[in-house]
């Protein structure tokens, strides 16, 4: 998918360049500026995530989320998912491994859902664009929704 994105970006860039060199250069300047604008926060987030992942190992997570852990486990899973920011290609195999080692579907669903929708570490970036209120409401709503997802998953699967 990343490759597809590169292909699309390159094609768009080529068309743009063909149509107007000036505008293309302007677009690239804009691209760089918006990237550099957010870069300090991106870098800070990366370090925080790195430290978190160094402290919180998959074995520890697995211990906390056994299928007997019930709603307590769901809440812990949701909390871990909200705070951490694990890339998808790490998170899904991790979730699969957790399921195998005894974690319940409810807990895993809560973990995956909050992992993707709720971002406590990224709140400063979000509120730069949306303000504090919208950021808090969106994250709280996403957290609540993730608990519902967990409940449904527990019933369906």
């Amino acid at each position, binding site marked *: 998918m990343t490759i597809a994105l590169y292909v699309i970006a390159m094609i768009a*860039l080529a068309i*743009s360049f063909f149509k107007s060199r000036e505008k293309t250069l302007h677009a690239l300047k804009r691209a760089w500026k918006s*990237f550099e604008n957010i870069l*300090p926060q991106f870098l800070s987030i990366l*370090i925080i*995530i790195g430290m978190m992942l160094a402290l919180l190992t998959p074995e520890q997570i697995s211990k906390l989320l056994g299928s007997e852990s019930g709603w307590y486990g769901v809440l812990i899973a949701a909390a871990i998912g909200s705070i951490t920011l694990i890339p998808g290609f790490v998170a899904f195999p991790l979730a699969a491994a957790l399921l195998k080692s005894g974690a319940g579907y409810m807990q895993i669903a809560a973990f995956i859902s909050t992992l993707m929708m709720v971002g406590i570490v990224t709140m400063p970036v979000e509120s730069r*664009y949306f303000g504090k209120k919208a950021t808090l409401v*969106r994250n709280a709503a996403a957290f609540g929704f993730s608990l519902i997802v967990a409940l449904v998953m527990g019933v369906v699967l």
Partner: protein
Amino acid sequence: MKDKIMKLAKRYQIFILLLVINIVVLVISPNVGRKAFQMTGSNMLEMLSVLPPIFILLGLLDVWVKRETMIKYMGDNSGMVGVLLAFFLGSAAAGPLYAAFPVAGVLLKKGSKLSNVFIMLGAWSTTKIPLILFEASALGLKFMLVRFMMDLIGIAIISYITEKSLTQKDKDVIYQKAQQTE
């Protein structure tokens, strides 16, 4: 020159502080510190690999798409077209959710409806196509499908709640922010 460096240092002060903390951890507890740096390094590589095309497309969007066009397709009266477009934009994306915020900024700047921007964010966070395929292979088709169906509803509900919680003044501030950030 000195001013410029000071300005730069100020913008990056939190990052520098965190870097120092990490180095201190590395000295006190080499294992944890080293692992943290490794994680940061691999995450940074992932970020750097996925962000360039996103920001290039963002720049092109900013320069080529007229405000009127954006308003027509994603603005206040865009209706279902705007919703679907927002959903598609988010789902076709790649990269972590925090990369979506600058994209959201440009959409707002060009006059996209706030709820549509929240839908884009929702789709970006959870129904990204490559991620869904990956989810199905790791956790099973059923797990993925149930979650996907629920997410479709969830994205709509979360967008609705978030937008309804904001007063007109809050919304104006958000649009102002979008105008200011380049």
